[in-house]
């Protein structure tokens, strides 16, 4: 705990100025894409606080988000998991792509999302919940041998109304390794910056550097058993703090609404944006981007 605190304080103190504008959501996607040529490096964790019969766990993941074009963003995830009294395991990788369908801003902005997942059943980062939710009870030794090759699609609908962002995500996922049918899930999010005018000076604790919101997400069963019976659902506030022009810290305590959940999911995320990443790589190889 002490080392986490030291790392956190170091990150804060290393920043020179304040103010990136990143969505505070962990689960819900908006229509705001990564700027072309920029790379976001994000380190996040999902901590599961157990209920009776479950073990506490921490599931860290690294996310590399790259703006391919102004309307196309691609992301690679690497994830693991460590369960108290059990073991630490690498749980797999994901590759996702988001494409903004319309070139201009509208009342509702649709984004299409396609993801390939190569995970084992011990995955607990819970970037989305589809079907009934993950197995939070079985030991890792039982879960890791089962590999899932899954294709996941989402329809992301997102609106900016005044200074509010309102986003809805509808998920369907097909696991090609098991006969689970097609699974469904959802996520809704609402967020707003704490201040809408930028002050003249650089500051770390100005209200304009904070965004607050809330997320609701969960599974909706599958084609074999559609509905909310035996599914996991969470609700929780989200907060983001722009530590600098390039970095953002996010926090969300999510509260389990059904018996299939952890009572509390604590999420932390730190994002660092490398501006002009494509140009830097091109220069490295002596080429123009």
């Amino acid at each position: 705990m002490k080392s986490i605190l030291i790392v956190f304080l170091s990150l804060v103190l290393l920043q020179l100025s304040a103010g990136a504008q990143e969505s505070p959501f962990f689960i819900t996607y908006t229509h705001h894409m990564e700027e072309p040529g920029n790379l976001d490096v994000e380190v996040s964790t999902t901590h599961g606080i157990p209920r009776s019969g479950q073990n506490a766990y921490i599931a860290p993941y690294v996310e590399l988000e790259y703006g391919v074009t102004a309307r196309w963003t691609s992301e690679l995830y690497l994830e693991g998991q460590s369960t108290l009294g059990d073991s630490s395991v690498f749980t797999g990788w994901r590759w996702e792509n988001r494409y903004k369908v319309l070139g201009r801003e509208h009342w509702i902005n649709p984004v299409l999302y396609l993801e390939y997942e190569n995970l084992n059943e011990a995955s607990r980062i819970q970037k989305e919940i589809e079907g009934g939710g993950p197995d939070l009870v079985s030991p890792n030794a039982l879960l890791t041998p089962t590999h899932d090759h899954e294709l996941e699609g989402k329809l992301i609908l997102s609106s900016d109304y005044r200074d509010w962002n309102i986003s809805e995500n509808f998920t369907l996922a097909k696991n090609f390794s098991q006969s689970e049918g097609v699974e469904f899930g959802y996520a809704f999010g609402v967020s707003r910056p704490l201040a809408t005018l930028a002050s003249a000076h650089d500051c770390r604790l100005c209200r304009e550097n904070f965004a607050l919101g809330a997320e609701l997400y969960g599974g909706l069963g599958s084609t074999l058993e559609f509905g909310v019976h035996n599914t996991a659902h969470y609700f929780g506030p989200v907060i983001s703090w722009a530590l600098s022009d390039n970095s953002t810290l996010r926090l969300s305590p999510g509260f389990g609404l059904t018996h299939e959940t952890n009572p509390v999911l604590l999420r932390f995320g730190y994002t660092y944006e490398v501006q002009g990443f494509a140009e830097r790589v091109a220069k490295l190889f002596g080429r123009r981007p």
Partner: protein
Amino acid sequence: MSKIRAGSVLAAFLAASCFAQNPNYQPDPEWRAPTQAQARENPLAARPELAAGGRKLFVRNCAECHGRDGAGLEKIHSADLQLPVVQQESDGALFWKITNGNARRGMPSFSKIPELQRWQIVLYLRTLKNQAGSGPATKSHQQQLFSLQPLSLPVS
């Protein structure tokens, strides 16, 4: 005489590099704000002191492509925001372009920036016009542009 001529050429070159790093910028003729958007007025027009915050937002979000002085970067064909072709646009048109971006030219949408902050950026863009139209660059003006010290804007 030749020294004076060389000095003039050098001064002209320095002025050009200060104020028109992409003077050959050609706007995308198909990237036009709708009439209704062009007619929108800046709700912060009566508060010019907020341009200082707009400058901070500009450096954070726009300078990577348009340069810290807004003069554009020729190698990526980004707009020189000091040119009359840009400055003649209405506030509403500039706001619309910041909000929607132009994917064909690689400019992303900045709708993620709160609306009033986008208007603050428009306020700041208007100060670039004043810089471009103020004649040859003075030493203190150049220092302000390149040292990223706060511009001489009234601050609330």
